[in-house]
């Protein structure tokens, strides 16, 4: 008789069978990767949304690039020390800097550019695929405060 219950490892198998799409690693897309290539896979919709937002932002902000960090491994394997980042629908993005450097920044730094970050958040939130943004600058509308998010926007997509 067949076992009708899902095996305890079914969720892992589901992730293991995933085959996500690589965020294009070529320059000129309006973003720079700050995670290694193997950590930049996502669902097609997630990758498309990131590319679209980056291009729009780049065009509207005189060539300002956004930093894209961890998405997911190609097959959804665990990505320690992340707890999530396994379903291809999450992406970490750096806040913007006033000096336009491709470098880390947090909301307490002198080089943090709130205005540009707010424009980026607004662009993201205008995308139907964007479900939620975790980020700790409470002066920016539409983000949710969450521990450990002074230096990146954790963007959760719908698909």
């Amino acid at each position, binding site marked *: 008789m067949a076992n009708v219950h899902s095996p305890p490892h079914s969720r892992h198998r589901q992730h293991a069978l995933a085959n996500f799409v690589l965020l294009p690693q070529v320059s000129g897309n309006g973003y720079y990767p*700050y995670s290694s290539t193997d950590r930049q896979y996502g669902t097609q919709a997630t990758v498309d949304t990131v590319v679209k937002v980056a291009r729009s932002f780049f065009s509207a902000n005189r060539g300002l690039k956004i930093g894209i960090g961890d998405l997911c491994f190609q097959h959804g394997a665990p990505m320690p020390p*992340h707890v999530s980042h396994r379903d291809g629908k999450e992406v970490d993005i750096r806040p913007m800097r006033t000096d336009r450097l491709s470098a880390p920044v947090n909301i307490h730094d002198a080089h943090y550019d709130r205005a540009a970050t707010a424009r980026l958040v607004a662009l993201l939130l205008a995308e139907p695929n964007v479900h939620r943004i*975790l980020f700790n600058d409470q002066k920016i509308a539409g983000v949710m405060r969450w521990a450990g998010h002074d230096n990146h926007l954790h963007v959760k997509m719908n698909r």
Partner: protein
Amino acid sequence: MARLIIALLLLMTVRTAALAAENISARAHYECIWWSTEQMANFDPNHPPPRKTRVRLDRWEYSDPVGVPHPDTVTLVVMLTSSGVQKNLDIVVRTQWLGGRPAKAEALTSHIVSLEAGVPKIIEFQLPVKATIDQNHPKLLRSSIWAGAKELSHADLPITVGD
């Protein structure tokens, strides 16, 4: 008779260690080797430069792969001072993980040190942390510094894993 002598010797040894520990104080903090601020600009994540900069580590945090330190191994830096001369002290560090899934406490290899009166001495312990953080998601690493049966001090390292 022999047993009595052995017992007395043991008692004297323990008493001596206890008296020695009473005169010692310790301060401890964490450090690691990480990328410098200059190295972080225009960083190539696929070909990262070697980490060469020693930084004080007030917390272990994975919220940016480059911008905040989250080393595989941390260095516990212990500064010992004594009001009197101390010979061949056995300094032991015990680590304890708090929060997250249970992880066993560890007694680390000890350092044997001698101290001059009023002259600080710095010793270091290398603590591998990556495996436990990845597997158990603890909230805090506590390292306790012991001399004999006395805890001299402890140092806490808050931990934030990525979401």
